[in-house]
């Protein structure tokens, strides 16, 4: 039975057994990966997986159940389990599925599926991972070992159908390679992680490029030391800038805003950042890793500006949160078969600026260039932001020496306003896309 057929059948059965509304979300996947070590295969994994989640409503009472057991004989019991939960639940006027008018018209699912990924020969992963390792090792004898080196792919098919007219699905492919080399000078060990992740095989960086960059990042950290506690300009490389805008998007979560549990809650329409800051959630990005025609509850995805030219424009919603907050869903319901929809981002992007990253660093007399961080980051209730940081010290506009065991701290709101440079080096290797950014001043804690 295909996912579409199964989803429709689950909805019909739930309706027949007394559900007022029903929605089924079905996932099928196939994944394979390889890790290598010292020129040999370390492990090979290959698998298929599947699952279905069923959301039912009865008199505004919500029940949800999931299963990975698709046997015909088990499906009735599964549907009944969801209904029994609805019967035991308390009614909530906000409960409900997206209505027909919320669903919108999904864009056709273009550029999500690359047949070349499906047809990859089984030894591609092994060969590619070995090339990544070889390239990383060839850079310098101080690349002593690897935490891990690997490559893999996966193919996923999802379908969502509901009694309210949702009916959409798509297939997507993903292919990736990564390396985490360890550099060692006898005194200190430093690891760095570098990877590329794409929907299309042809877009993937070469194994050499990934191996070399990973090694370069590990080597330049050798000899890292603490610096004194001080307030200085802080530059985040594109990956770390991505983690910062992810924290901003987290604070723009419509549910946290509705509960006034986000520092952004009272600021809609206000200037919260410098004028050159534009952050969008883009569900339609061509070949984007987070692109899909519909979100996790069948609502058409779109482009939602969160911050536009410094102004807080919109929050992110799924259908249920939108209903209680008297807003419209923005197509940001995330989903796995084992969970109810929750609000998240499709592709999150900080729009790039015009200056090169070198120029951003050149503009700093003394400061910190951050290339890796530890810890979760922002407390979105207060906006307090504090993370462990690794990187390079900037002295007179040049990268001077590696730094570790320091933290970078501020408050989300203050940090957004202090962004004084945005690079032109937008990076596209995950569903969060950002260029290099610079904060005019943050607290670096060390000695």
């Amino acid at each position, binding site marked *: 039975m295909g996912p579409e057929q199964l989803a429709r059948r689950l909805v019909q059965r739930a309706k027949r057994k007394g559900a007022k509304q029903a929605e089924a979300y079905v996932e099928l996947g196939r994944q394979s990966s390889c890790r290598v*070590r010292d020129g*040999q295969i*370390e*492990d*090979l*994994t*290959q698998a298929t*997986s*599947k*699952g279905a989640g069923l959301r039912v409503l009865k008199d505004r009472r919500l*029940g*949800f*159940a*999931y*299963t*990975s*057991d698709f046997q015909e004989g088990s499906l009735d019991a599964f549907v009944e*389990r969801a209904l029994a*939960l609805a019967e*035991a*639940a*308390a009614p909530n006027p906000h409960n409900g599925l997206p209505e027909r008018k919320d669903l919108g018209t999904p864009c056709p699912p273009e550029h999500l599926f690359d047949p070349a990924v499906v047809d990859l020969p089984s030894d591609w992963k092994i060969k590619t991972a070995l090339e990544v390792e070889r390239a990383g090792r060839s850079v310098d004898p101080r690349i*002593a*070992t*690897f*935490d891990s080196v690997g490559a893999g792919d996966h193919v996923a098919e999802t379908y969502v159908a509901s009694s309210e007219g949702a009916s959409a699905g798509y297939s997507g492919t993903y292919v990736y390679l990564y390396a985490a080399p*360890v550099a060692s000078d006898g005194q200190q*060990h*430093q*690891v760095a992680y570098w990877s590329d992740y794409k929907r299309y095989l042809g877009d993937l960086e070469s194994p050499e490029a990934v191996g070399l960059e990973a090694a370069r990042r590990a080597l330049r*950290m050798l000899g*890292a030391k603490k610096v004194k*506690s*001080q*307030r200085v300009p802080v530059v985040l490389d594109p990956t770390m800038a991505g983690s910062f805008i992810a924290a901003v998007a987290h604070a723009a979560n419509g549910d946290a805003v509705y*509960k*006034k*549990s986000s520092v952004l809650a009272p600021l809609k329409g206000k200037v919260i950042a410098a004028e050159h800051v534009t952050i969008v959630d883009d569900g339609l990005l061509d070949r984007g890793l987070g692109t899909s025609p519909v979100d996790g509850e069948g609502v058409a995805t779109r482009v939602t500006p969160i911050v536009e030219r410094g102004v807080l424009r919109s929050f992110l919603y799924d259908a249920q949160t939108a209903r*209680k907050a008297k807003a419209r869903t923005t197509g940001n319901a995330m989903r796995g078969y*084992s969970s*109810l929809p929750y609000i998240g981002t499709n592709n999150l992007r900080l729009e790039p600026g015009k200056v090169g990253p070198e120029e951003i660093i050149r503009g700093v007399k003394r400061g910190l260039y951050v290339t*890796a961080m*530890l*810890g*979760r980051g922002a*407390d979105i*209730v*207060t906006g307090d932001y*504090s993370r*462990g940081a*690794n990187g390079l010290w900037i002295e007179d506009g040049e990268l001077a020496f590696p730094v570790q*065991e*320091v*933290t970078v*701290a501020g408050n989300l709101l203050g940090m957004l306003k202090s962004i004084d440079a945005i690079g032109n080096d937008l990076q596209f290797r995950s569903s969060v896309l950002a260029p290099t950014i610079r904060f005019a001043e943050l*607290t*670096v*804690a*060390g*000695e």
Partner: protein
Amino acid sequence: MSRSKRAAVPASARPPPPPPLLPVGLVERLLAAAMERGGDFAEVYVERAETTAVVLEERRVKSAQTGLVQGVGLRVIAGHKVGYAYSDDLEDEALFRAARTAALIAQSGGSPREFKVSRSPAPMYYRVAQPLSQVEVARKADLVLRADRAAHAYDKRVKVVTATYADVTKRIWIASTRGRFAEDTQDLCRLGVSVVAEGKNRERRSGYYGGGGRVSFNHFDTFTPEQCAREAARQAIATLGAAEAEAGPQTVVLAPGWSGILLHEAVGHGLEADFIRKKTSLFAGKMGQKVASEKVTVIDDGTVANSRGSINVDDEGNPGERKVLIENGVLKGYMYDALNAEMMGERSTGSGRRESFKHKPLPRMTNTYLAPGDDSPEDILRSVKRGLYCAQFGGGQVDITNGNFVFEVSEAYQIEDGKLGRPVKNAMLIGVGPEALKNVTMVGCDPMPDPGMGTCGKDGQSVPVGVGLPTLRIDGITVGGTRVSR
């Protein structure tokens, strides 16, 4: 909270066995199929997990859900290479396909062989009166409703309460070509309450508390939702009006209990055998050397009765163990899964754990704690002229290669002349594992396990863990605050 004693349950108290997860004959034939191409070792891992979750927000039960996931993971080892495949389709055809896929790792060409497995008895460090999956959902919903009422009743400044109850009843089988057949039923539950309080000038701060373990549902008769709710609310209110934390090295005192994640991050991960074998941990090659203050003794113990991180058997079928990792400051042991143990000429310490049948086992922690010392908690506080008292903690993270770890402090107070002063916010501790442990100058006589709320992530796999710590004084650790005084 008190430290539970280790105790095994007498055999006579055991309930009748539940129906088999798969026919044993099928498991044996899968092992044969997995060895078709001549591997050295094959293992079948069968899992069936039933989950329940109830979420309360905005004063009502938002959702109740149940789930069922089952599947089989097949692992074949040939030399040092691992082939892994899994299937959530339990039809014979799908399972044999998975076995043959895992078998592809071996190239030596095998000959048809038969394998027989027999049950090995396992200890029992936890057992529940009634599987949690069979406890009525309404009783679980009652816990979150009670928590909500208690949190709101605690103080008018409590504005937002979210409460979650979640449990799993997981049955596992592990059978291998060495003839081993181990099984376990692992019930696990957790109640968590999160509170946001609003003070003057609309300042909002949050608090979190909760716990559980491998316990019967009546655990919540004594570890009550009211108690959790009041503690979460207390934290949120106590931190209203907190001052900026001072950045830089300070003397810190850690409150007992959940602060044990300091050990988990600062040393625990770095003592896992995979990192040692690959020499990516800064503790590699340091066996027998002094890596911490002599006041520091660290133990990882999978056998603590009813604790969240305990395991009767690990996910490779080896019994859970108590292991001394660091004794009086000297490195004594690493944590081994079977594969790394074999490659390193050691024995498994029952540390091979995996999130589910979709994952290969990795060496992991269970319950990691610091043995108590001689100092009274009052003396420890009194000994500090100026420093930071860390009362509650968020999460932590470590880079095992350079040893840098961070540790979020969610409730902290300035210490002035041995007494608690005003609350401070946005403090985070950062250090390098062995250096931080060398700076441990006082260890309390008040050992305390955490209430059962930890989940550890490694290589994308989450497993439940326990931690524990007595009151501790660490000198000169960097506090990542926002205020620079010099």
